[in-house]
């Protein structure tokens, strides 16, 4: 790249160096993740306000099958994070074939998650759940929260699958560096991390008590 002026090394902040010792792509992705975290936080905090302040919040999810079903979805998404980690690891070794294989496995996990999720959406829509009303009585906000939060998360998963597809094709052709693969991994783990809050807040807080 460029030669670093020795004088600028007096402080990592005097310019010409990488203060966080990361490339600009990785730093950029981290900054995007920070801002997206706040988007999801705002939605989940607003949800928590409605959830706690409404004693008649609907509890439409029986432990079996609904909660067990969404637990399986959670494990599928977690498993796709593990395959992504292995892909990034293969990337640092420079093993391109393994990277493509692991990323394809990650994409399969993401698509399975979206498939299961859409099946659940269809089921709830059939039961009569709408953004402004629900068939079980209680707060009408349930539908807005459910479709809003899980819909935004599902959009992130779908964008992630497309992003990983591009990375897989490019890696296969030798276009991307290990850093590019790691940056796509950061995005994928972030999507997983968001679900680690959506699942307990939206699902487990709405389990049907016997």
């Amino acid at each position, binding site marked *: 790249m460029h030669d670093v002026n020795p004088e600028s090394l007096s402080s990592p902040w005097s310019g010409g160096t990488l203060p966080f010792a990361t490339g600009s792509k990785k730093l950029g992705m981290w900054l995007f993740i920070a801002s997206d975290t706040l988007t999801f936080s705002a939605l989940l905090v607003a949800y*928590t306000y409605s959830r706690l302040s409404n004693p008649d919040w609907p509890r439409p999810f029986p432990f079996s099958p609904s909660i067990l079903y969404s637990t399986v979805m959670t494990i599928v998404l977690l498993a796709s994070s593990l395959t992504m980690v292995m892909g990034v*690891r293969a990337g640092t070794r420079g093993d391109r074939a393994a990277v493509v294989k692991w990323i394809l496995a990650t994409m399969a996990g993401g698509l399975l998650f979206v498939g299961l999720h859409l099946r659940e959406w269809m089921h709830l829509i059939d039961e009569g759940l709408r953004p402004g009303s629900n068939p079980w009585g209680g707060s009408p906000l349930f539908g807005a929260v459910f479709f809003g939060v899980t819909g935004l998360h599902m959009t992130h998963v779908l964008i992630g699958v497309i992003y990983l597809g591009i990375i897989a094709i490019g890696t296969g052709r030798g276009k991307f560096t290990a850093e590019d693969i790691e940056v796509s991994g950061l995005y994928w783990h972030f999507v997983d991390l968001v679900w680690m809050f959506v699942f307990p807040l939206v699902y487990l807080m709405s389990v049907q008590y016997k």
Partner: protein
Amino acid sequence: MSNHTEGANVHPEIPAKTFAWVWICLVFITGIEVYLAYIELEPTLMLGILLGLSLIKAALIMAWFMHLKYEKFSLTLMLVPSILFCIAMMAVYIFWDAVRLARMRSL
């Protein structure tokens, strides 16, 4: 000073076993959360425990899966405290009023 290559960071090779262990911890904590839903707790208590467990999960994912543990500490310092502060601000704005409304409405 020699030139540095794109993304100057060179991570040490992290053993696959480490990631497998982190993953098992994540699944285990998820299991505890699902169990809490099974035993039917009061909502505010349930929310507190779930958020605590989810924060542990988030920390595990960020430290190992997202490699934050292996980056310079300054990156963690830039990202984590500011986000936690913003979320705490949002939570402080709504929490006690939500509890007050819940009590009023359940009378």
